[in-house]
């Protein structure tokens, strides 16, 4: 097997055993990127020179603890010191932060080698990565199809073996949905588990940074590094962080799994339902107790999400006004015109639409009917989950209603596109940890199974995901995007 095909933990072993140097690994990765990137288009920015330099330093030091010497990528919404961070938007096209996001500095301090920044839907608004202001990313399993979004670049790059792992962000499903479409592992931790400092905000009460990897073990390894309190983020909670690799036990006997009937209804493709149900049988076979449960308010999650998220976004994106950084219209004749023309030219349609939606929802006279009501719905959704978690350890559902769709297929009608998130959004609204793992194929396209845990119980997700992975071989299947 080529070095680029190896998982994070396999690369760790190679480095430890001196069977490969970091430089060789990074070179292999860039070799792979050169081979497939023209088709996949996962990266907005690549830094081969910087990565090689870091790799050589790693080799010279000879310290291969943690992820030292191992390449990775960051979604281009995560600020990286000295490297462009665009949010796939024209308004930040040339923005180079002089600070690292906390997650970026933690990976850096652990010795990881940053390869580049990954494509996404502009400001994380979208489910296909077609909303990138620069170019769409392709699904490695079928280049005519989308990788999902908004962290589509991260998912596609990991699936196509361009990098062993990547970070993404998930506001309504932006890690789990592309992980599902691309057949990789995607974890969105509990809200408050991972610092958001330096991650450009879309919807602050929902955003959470998480991990893409090809195997569950890698996900646990990376979570160990990025999770935990950060004094720079007041919403990042000071709760004890376990060693997540301790949950990598192939034993789920007695684990109580609930599957919500509302997540297996019409609107979810039959092939997907069947695949996930088969996976549930596997869990039973492995000794878990599987029962149907109900989350009755889930159907209101999507409409409520499309009030809360745009409302917060309308404020979060207001700072892009051309005054201090980013794009500015220098032709404008006064300051109001500068604000409007800078933003008119800098933002894409989807972003503008969500800013308008959010502005409207917060407007005087509408606040109670929309935003406040959405917050109440949010509380009901959370209560549903709390009730189920009184009796169950884990909830399992499909991650997405369909497999990856074709490029351009869902660009016309936003409501159809928003339906992609119907199974993932409730988890963000409740602030819970969620994970998508490969559980089969329909028409040669990957299907993801969503695992939902109690707050701050990422450990149980990892344990259940690992057990499934150890007893199936879906994760070993690799796409062949073809070499140029």
């Amino acid at each position, binding site marked *: 097997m080529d070095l680029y095909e190896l998982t994070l933990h396999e690369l760790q072993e190679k480095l430890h055993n001196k069977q490969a140097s970091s430089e060789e690994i990074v070179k292999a990765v860039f070799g792979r990127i050169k081979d497939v990137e023209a088709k996949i288009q996962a990266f907005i920015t690549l830094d081969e020179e910087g990565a090689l330099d870091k790799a050589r330093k790693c080799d010279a030091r000879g310290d291969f603890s943690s992820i030292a010497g191992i390449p990775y990528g960051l979604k281009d919404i995560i600020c990286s010191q000295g490297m462009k961070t665009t949010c796939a938007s024209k308004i930040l096209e040339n923005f180079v932060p002089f600070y690292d996001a906390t997650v970026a500095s933690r990976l850096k301090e652990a010795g990881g080698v940053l390869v580049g920044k990954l494509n996404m839907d502009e400001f994380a608004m979208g489910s296909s990565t077609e909303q990138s202001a620069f170019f769409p990313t392709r699904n490695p399993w079928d280049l005519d199809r989308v990788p999902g979004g908004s962290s589509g670049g991260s998912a596609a790059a990991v699936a196509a073996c361009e990098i062993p792992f990547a970070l993404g962000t998930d506001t309504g499903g932006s890690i789990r949905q592309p992980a599902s479409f691309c057949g990789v592992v995607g974890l969105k931790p509990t809200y408050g588990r991972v610092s958001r400092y330096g991650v450009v905000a879309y919807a602050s009460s929902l955003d959470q940074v998480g991990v893409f990897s090809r195997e569950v073990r890698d996900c646990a390894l990376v979570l160990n590094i990025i999770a935990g309190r950060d004094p720079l983020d007041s919403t990042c909670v000071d709760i004890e962080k376990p060693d997540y690799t301790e949950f990598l036990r192939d034993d789920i006997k007695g684990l109580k799994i609930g599957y919500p009937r509302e997540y297996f209804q019409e609107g979810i493709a039959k092939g997907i339902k069947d695949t996930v149900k088969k996976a549930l049988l596997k869990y039973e076979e492995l000794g878990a107790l599987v029962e149907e449960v109900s989350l009755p308010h889930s159907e209101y999650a999507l409409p409520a999400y499309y009030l809360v998220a745009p409302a917060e976004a309308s404020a979060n994106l207001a*700072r892009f006004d051309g005054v*201090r*950084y980013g794009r500015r219209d220098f032709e404008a004749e006064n300051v109001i015109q500068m604000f409007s023309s800078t933003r008119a030219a800098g933002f894409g349609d989807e972003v503008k639409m969500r800013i308008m939606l959010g502005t409207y929802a917060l407007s005087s006279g509408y606040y109670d009917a929309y935003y406040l009501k959405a917050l109440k719905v949010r509380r009901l959704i959370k209560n549903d989950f709390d009730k189920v978690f009184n009796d169950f350890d884990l909830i399992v559902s499909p991650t997405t209603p369909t497999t990856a769709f074709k490029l351009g297929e869902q660009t016309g009608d936003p409501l159809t596109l928003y339906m992609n998130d119907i199974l993932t959004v409730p988890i963000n609204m409740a602030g819970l940890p969620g994970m998508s793992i490969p559980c089969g194929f329909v028409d040669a396209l990957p299907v993801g199974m969503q695992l939902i845990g109690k707050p701050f119980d990422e450990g149980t997700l990892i344990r259940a995901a690992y057990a499934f992975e150890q007893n199936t071989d879906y994760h070993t299947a690799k796409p062949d995007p073809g070499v140029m």
Partner: protein
Amino acid sequence: MSKDFETVIGLEVHVELKTRSKIFCSCTNEFGAKPNTNVCPICSGFPGMLPVLNEQVVDYAIKSGLALNCEIADYCKFDRKNYFYPDLPKAYQISQYDLPVCKQGYLDIEVNGERKRIGITRAHLEEDAGKLVHQGTISSTTFSLVDLNRSGVPLLEIVSEPDLRSSQEARAYMEKLRSLLLFAGVSDCKMEEGSLRCDANVSVRPYGQEELGTRAEVKNLNSFKAMEKAIDYEVRRQIEAIEDGEEIIQETRTWEEERQITRSMRSKEEAHDYRYFPEPDLPPLRISREWVERILQSLPEMPEKARERLMEEYDLSEYDAHLLTLTPDYLAFFDECTLYYQDGKIISNWMMGELNKLLNQKNMDIAECRIKPAALADMLKLIDEGRISGKMAKDVFEEMFETGASPEKIIKEKGMEQISDEAALGTIIQEVIDKNPGVVDDYRNGKKKATGFLVGQVMQATKGQANPALVNKILAEKLNN
């Protein structure tokens, strides 16, 4: 003002809290630094930055609330107030909308000898914005410069009930508020530096009418004087308008210092919709009873208590005691002086008189004064000991004020010590008598006023240093012999 209309005023006061660092980042909170030197990615609104609440700001808010007799909320939260302006880096201000940190307080004012309680509706925390700087005038310049040093400076906005009935009451309220906050030690309260700012909501209504008239909010009040003038102008304007049959419209007006008028800035219809919503980056703030108790223990003596104490301990008039307790620095000067000199009344007279006169002349603050309380006490002792006269003391005091030297040193160096040596004075007086036989004759012939001339001659001969009481005594003795 018209006698048919009652004035109704409510004040919104912004106070900059003088915490070490800003409210949501660790930048230094100071006035007057070079533009954009106290800034960081957080207070300049860079992508991905998050606010972290400075605990000292909460301490100061609690302190202020206690000083203003407020209820301190055990649960409050922050909200975003959205509007676009180049000096507002995030395009929203983090403020408190419906759950402020302090509410339902009051302070007492006194106008024309009458005491009145003014309600305080609420006091809430928020961050200040930066400021725009223009070269030349705003209309002639082609660009604006943004200075973000002030962005993120903690502000407490204190909103009064519409309890004030005149510009004098408004001024008394501002003075009292300033005094309380100075004593609490939470702010410099310097209007000229913008650490104390005030907007006035002004309306009028016919006497006896329960319902409030339509109000105008008057901004840009940069001094107590401007506030008084602006309120008086606004009241006059509104009464005249009503008497002319016009309707008052709810609007924001600005005080134009040069023209001494208020001018409309925007009407209610043009008012911003700030689209407040809860700040998702900050968890709600819980303030325990223990926290409030701890701050209460740290709160110094407030001016009203101090005033009572001064009146009781030193038998000062209410007026003097009031003036001495206007600022904590003033009171501290007095209190320290009483450690070295017993008679508070004399100290008070000197502070009210000479000290104030010189401070006003030099436009100085008592904290900057070169005379230390112990030195004033030393000088008062010299008077008591008869080593200098009260008149000489004024010169000594002025010298102390200029140079900061001790009174002892000044009288030594300048040879200013009073001559109280009877033998020495006797000799000088005898010389004066011998030189002026005509005047002595006049005196002896019944022109008692003639002594005045002789005393003057003695003073001249001693360069004013003769102890006047002693001169009078010796002179009388010699003339009557």
